[in-house]
């Protein structure tokens, strides 16, 4: 029998208009170039290509 838990998503991927990609929930974040392997509860990832702290957003998109 399927339970509610079987059907529920445990991560939320949200494209913020004019801003970064927000990812929350049970995730594994990997970036081989930056040697990152982490499981943050919440992360904002750069989508504009201008962040000085890639893959993370540093709000450069606002400038």
């Amino acid at each position, binding site marked *: 029998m399927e339970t509610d838990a079987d059907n529920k*998503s445990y991560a*939320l991927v949200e494209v913020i208009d004019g801003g970064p990609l927000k990812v929350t929930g*049970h995730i594994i*974040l990997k970036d081989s170039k930056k040697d990152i*392997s982490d499981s943050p*509860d919440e*992360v904002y990832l750069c989508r504009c290509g201008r962040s000085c702290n890639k893959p993370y957003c540093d709000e450069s998109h606002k400038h």
Partner: protein
Amino acid sequence: MEKGKNTFTGGRRYRNNDITVYWKPDACVHASYCYRELIEVFDPGRRPWVDMNGSTTDRIIEVVNMCPTEALTWKWNDDEKNKEISPDQTNHVIFRRPELLTENEKVFEKNPVSVKIMMDGPIVIKGDFNFQYSGNNKEMKDGIISICRCGASNQMPFCDGTHRKIGFEDK
């Protein structure tokens, strides 16, 4: 903007160069193996109560494995090493005792969502997740999406390969 580096849902985490130890206070029944065995690392009277520099990695793993409730669990920071764990490592995160898992955690074990940053390319997300963009809301089941990271795609928010044309480099 990275948040929650030392916390995760339901607890805190502590790292040394080799391993990460997870602590879930709600699961602790105060069996007290940790501080009776290794007060140098696990000292309830100190803040923070876990000092990962207090002993060797081997000894910390040994004592975390004694925790009867999995209030304390651990994993290697090098994910390659997490793939081969012997059954005596009872409190390694992938050797969770089934009887102690909640329904939510069972789903967690089953459906980890992979967020992979491709070298000089897009963000590739795989698994079961809720995806929201431009007013759309999609339940992804075993789904895969590729999100533009160079800022120049003609199919925003998705990657269309433009990063190659413009020579996007993640420095």
